[in-house]
């Protein structure tokens, strides 16, 4: 059973995947909610996953591009928990390293190619929002880790990591929010969704992040993006998006935000560029520096709070009138 060739019980089927949003936390302090696989396995998965995709690649190239290979001579010894995971259902070659639904394990070379290609495609065709998302995922590992640490050290952020709330139309009570008085966060958010004709369900699912907690962090960041529009008072046109990107770049440090903030204005005309540089960007940067981490607020509990008081609590300065 431990024969190297039989490391995976490789038959077709669906891997019973880990990340279930909104599940109650386990008793241990770690965010193990939904993560059924031990860290050691995860570490090896990260190392060894792509090797299965690159058979017979040149050893030197493999070292450079694919990360240090697991020593082949020793073969693989599946840890005990593997048996419980794979026992009930057959595991695919493909999906063996799937850490959450929609996860696609990638090697460092693939990540580098994806980042370069996604950056190019996003600039070439600004309607490719999925490319922006991919760029964020492939380049954001260290920024996501620092974000996650910020969340862990804050009580509300920690609660979010435990409970894993998702903002979706199915979970939002839109009519209830619409009934709230004007000026409240919930009412303004729904107004934003209606007037810009956007929906919280259009966020791309995470694919290329190789850690399921970080995958949640980036998913939360994407879902909070619309809320940021509301709090900053920015519409979803190009100008508004750039301002929000500057704010997020300062707040999160994600390379994708920084690139978007720096290269986004390339497509604007001179007048908008002037407004941007003289008023909006300085305000966004100051707000970003002044505000505490925006991911540390449980927005779902704050629909009745007024926008003004929420802004003050977070530390966002009053938006200039465009």
């Amino acid at each position: 059973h431990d024969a190297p060739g039989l490391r995976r019980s490789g038959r077709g089927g669906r891997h019973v995947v880990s990340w279930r949003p909104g599940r109650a936390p386990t008793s241990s302090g770690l965010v193990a909610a939904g993560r059924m696989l031990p860290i050691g396995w995860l570490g090896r998965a990260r190392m060894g996953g792509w090797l299965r995709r690159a058979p017979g690649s040149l050893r030197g190239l493999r070292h450079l591009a694919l990360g240090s290979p697991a020593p082949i001579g020793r073969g693989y010894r599946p840890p005990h928990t593997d048996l419980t995971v794979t026992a009930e259902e057959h595991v695919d070659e493909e999906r063996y390293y799937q850490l959450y639904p929609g996860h696609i394990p990638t090697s460092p070379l693939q990540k580098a190619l994806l980042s370069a290609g996604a950056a190019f495609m996003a600039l070439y065709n600004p309607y490719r929002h999925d490319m922006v998302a991919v760029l964020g995922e492939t380049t954001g590992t260290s920024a996501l880790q620092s974000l996650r640490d910020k969340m862990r050290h804050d009580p509300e952020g920690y609660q979010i990591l435990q409970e894993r709330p998702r903002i979706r139309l199915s979970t939002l009570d839109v009519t209830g929010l619409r009934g709230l008085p004007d000026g409240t966060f919930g009412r303004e958010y729904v107004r934003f969704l209606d007037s810009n004709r956007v929906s919280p369900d259009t966020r791309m699912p995470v694919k290329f992040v190789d850690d399921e907690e970080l995958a949640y962090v980036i998913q939360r960041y994407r879902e909070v993006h619309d809320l940021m529009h509301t709090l900053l008072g920015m519409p979803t046109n190009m100008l508004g998006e750039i301002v929000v990107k500057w704010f997020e770049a300062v707040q999160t440090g994600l390379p994708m935000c920084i690139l978007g903030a720096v290269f986004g204005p390339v497509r604007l005309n001179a007048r908008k560029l002037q407004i941007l540089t003289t008023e909006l960007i300085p305000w966004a940067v100051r707000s970003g520096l002044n505000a505490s981490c925006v991911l540390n607020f449980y927005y779902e509990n704050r629909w009745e709070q007024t926008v003004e008081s929420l802004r003050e609590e977070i530390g966002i300065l009053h938006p200039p009138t465009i």
Partner: protein
Amino acid sequence: SAKFTPLPKMAASIGAVVCRALHSRRHGKFLSIGRGLFSGARCLVAEGETHFGFQTVSETEKGEKVYHVFESVAKKYDIMNDSMSLGIHRLWKDILLHQMNPYPGTQLLDVAGGTGDIAFRFINYVRSQWEHQIRQKLKSHQNLSWQEISKSYQEEELKLPGGSQVVVCDINKEMLKVGKQKAQHLGYSEGLSWVVGNAEELPFNDSKFDVYTIAFGIRNVTHIDQALQEAYRVLKPGGRFLCLEFSQVNNPLFSRLYDLYSFQVIPVLGEIIAGDWKSYQYLVESIRHFPAQEEFKAMIEDAGFLKVEYRNLTSGIVAIHSGFKL
């Protein structure tokens, strides 16, 4: 079944043997094992099951999954082909046509011809052959009057030369839709028809076509032997079967580079250009599962074709298999 792994051949064989022991209660099809890494990936599929890339799925499931793959890639199919093969796929298809060498009047059936690449090339080839023939005729008939010459031009102008006909058959409606749009855009209309059909059960009578081609399609078919038998059925006696398909690379060094490129770069290109990683992951995996040149040649011979030959292109990345119904 033992999955494809980068472990040495012996380990793969051991794994395969252990697999067989586990599966012994099901009498699985046992494909040849001793051929190296990829063979390890291809062994031991139980009955009623087949490969979808590196996954094992039931046979009905495979058909559906393949349909969905091509439905989602249809619009970007041609762009992706160009970027993945760096445009070389055009050369491959041109070589296929040269090998076919059709004369005006040939009836071609292009199965899995979706976006019409082979069909359009066929029409171009036949037209240029026809023009060549006319030029030859004119050279030998220098004493024809001008009225007679212009009359001969007018007669043949509208119809496809010599009554050649190409039927493009594909199981996937999206691919055919893209093909029809392309035909309209490029101005091909005569002698071209588009039919929805399954390669395993073609909606044509026996002995109807002179040439049957299937380019980059047969590896997606669930039962390749059935597709080959159908090909035999619809061909006229003297008809030719031509298959252009990805195959096994014979040079070991080049093979490693090719694998690196396939598995590292192609899904990334799929994600960036078409927004679809999984379909292109399926593509590169399905190439690994397809039988090698000799084995496929044996399968074609089993279907009844004679004088079966193959020709490697680009050192084995693709191969053209050819057989005759005699």
